[in-house]
């Protein structure tokens, strides 16, 4: 196991979000399935922390636990030192699915919705702040449009504006760009980074794309699958969209690939579900040894 470097000492203040030995389980009619096993990591203020792993590594489940939708069976999740026990507006989630926007609310009402629902602001201030963030994501001309008239990318922009308007302690994004086409996804990544430069929110971002993780994050937690365990934490603050073709970027991509898929050979009994992964793992290690 690689050594984990904590940056608490250098940054002065403690971590904002602590995931401490968290195990998560869910039930199927026949089994209790362990989604993550004793996962620990810290997220600091203004981090862009990415959880990266293949499907089935429990990264989305972990994000839902941080949002408060699932209670851990073991360990604890703390925000500002307090344990999380329920969903709350201090942790706003941007989901992958487009139906996260209530279709009966216009863009403006959608962005103002959490502010009003959580009774954070009065009507007038909520609308004011909503307008500000709609402007930030460039949707001012569409403020009175209903979600069904928007494209996928625009809907995700609304969801991001809605989350930012709430000014949450931590912004949770669950593969927010996975359902978008490649060109739109790239543009959204660019815009997200520009927004971060401007607002400096704390972001926890879940993805299964190594490239997206390297571009979006400043630090990446790698989760191995079945059940999800933290394989490594890697720094990626020096990469951006422009460094995608560089040799160092390629090298890090391959290193992550190796870290993610090496595990499968040891932990997997003969299971059909792993066949695809094992195949990719083989090609991955071939590439590494070459």
């Amino acid at each position, binding site marked *: 196991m690689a050594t984990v470097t904590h940056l608490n000492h250098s940054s002065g203040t403690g971590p904002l979000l602590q995931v401490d030995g968290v195990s998560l389980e869910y039930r199927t009619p026949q089994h209790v399935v362990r989604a993550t096993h004793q996962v620990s990591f810290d997220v600091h203020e203004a981090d862009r922390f990415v959880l990266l792993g293949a499907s089935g590594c429990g990264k989305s489940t972990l994000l839902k636990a941080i*949002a408060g939708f699932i209670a851990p069976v073991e360990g604890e999740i703390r925000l500002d030192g307090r344990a999380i026990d329920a969903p709350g507006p201090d942790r706003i989630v941007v989901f992958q699915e487009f*139906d996260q926007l*209530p*279709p009966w609310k216009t863009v403006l009402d959608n962005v103002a919705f959490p502010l009003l*629902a*959580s009774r954070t602001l009065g009507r007038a201030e909520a609308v004011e702040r909503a307008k500000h963030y709609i402007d930030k994501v460039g949707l001012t001309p569409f403020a009175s449009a209903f979600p069904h008239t928007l494209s996928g990318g625009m809907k995700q922009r609304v969801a991001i504006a809605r989350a930012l308007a709430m000014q949450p302690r931590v912004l949770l994004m669950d593969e927010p760009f996975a359902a978008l086409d490649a060109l739109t996804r790239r543009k959204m990544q660019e815009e997200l980074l520009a927004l971060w430069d401007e607002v400096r929110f704390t972001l926890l971002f879940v993805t299964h794309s190594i490239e997206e993780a390297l571009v979006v994050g400043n630090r990446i937690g790698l989760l191995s699958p079945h059940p999800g365990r933290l394989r490594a934490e890697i720094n990626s603050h020096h990469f951006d969209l422009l460094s995608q073709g560089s040799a160092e970027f390629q090298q890090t991509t391959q290193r992550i690939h190796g870290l993610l898929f090496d595990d499968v050979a040891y932990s997997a009994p003969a299971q059909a579900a792993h066949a695809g992964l094992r195949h990719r793992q083989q090609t991955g290690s071939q590439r590494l040894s070459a």
Partner: protein
Amino acid sequence: MNAPLSPGQSLPPDPPVRPEFEHALPPLSPRAAERPLPWTQRIWQQDWLRRGLILVVLAFAWEVTARVQDNDLLFPTFLQTGKALLEGLAGGELLLRAGISIGVLLQGYAAGILAAFVLTTLAVSTRIGRDLLSTLTAMFNPLPAIALLPLALLWFGLGRGSLIFVLIHSVLWPLALNTYAGFQGVPETLRMAGRNYGLRGLRYVLQILVPAALPSILAGLKVGWAFAWRTLIAAELVFGASSGKGGLGWYIFQNRNELYTDRVFAGLALVIIIGLLVETLGFQTLERVTVRRWGLQR
């Protein structure tokens, strides 16, 4: 996947390498991207025109059939019925009768909606509430409201109380079933988004579940309305006489006894007209400003 080539087969030749090119794209006139439909197609898209046409055709068929039959007592013509209807409306009797019916109907309908809302809210929040709803609807939904009328008469006596009881019965179960089905169909992401903002309990139901399930709820309201209307007319036919002031059902029954068949038809026509008005002015307007506007329904 490509099938492996058999040894004797030759590979197709490489495609030719063609020169590259770039076009400069001059701006197009706006008409090239979007142009209006011809006026005939635009007019034919109006709902009222197509539906009105259907009504005209039906009325014409009625008139012709009745004239061929030539029996005023059994089957008055469209024009005779229209005349009886206008006379009834002008004389005020039909309006009074319809007013009484609608008054009772609205009371029963409102009470049924309230009961359905309470029942489905219980059903989404607790497991025992869910069991209660499914058991009750399985028991009572197949039971015709009119079959409860004798019992209602025993309990509440002749008059308003009994009518409202059977009306609630006819509205409650279909509406509760539809509403609950709608609640269950609300996307998980939307539910999580609502809870994410700290919505719980009644606010969660009212701000997330009800609007998201509105297409199903509206369908339930429509079914409930139709059930209530037909239950009411049937119930009035049975005992409207003794309740002092009878509604439309009683008007139909009375005129049948006196063999004013054109007035019977006029009464039936008014039942249908009120149904059409509620459907087009009430429900369709409601759908247009809600579910259609929101893109929940085409």
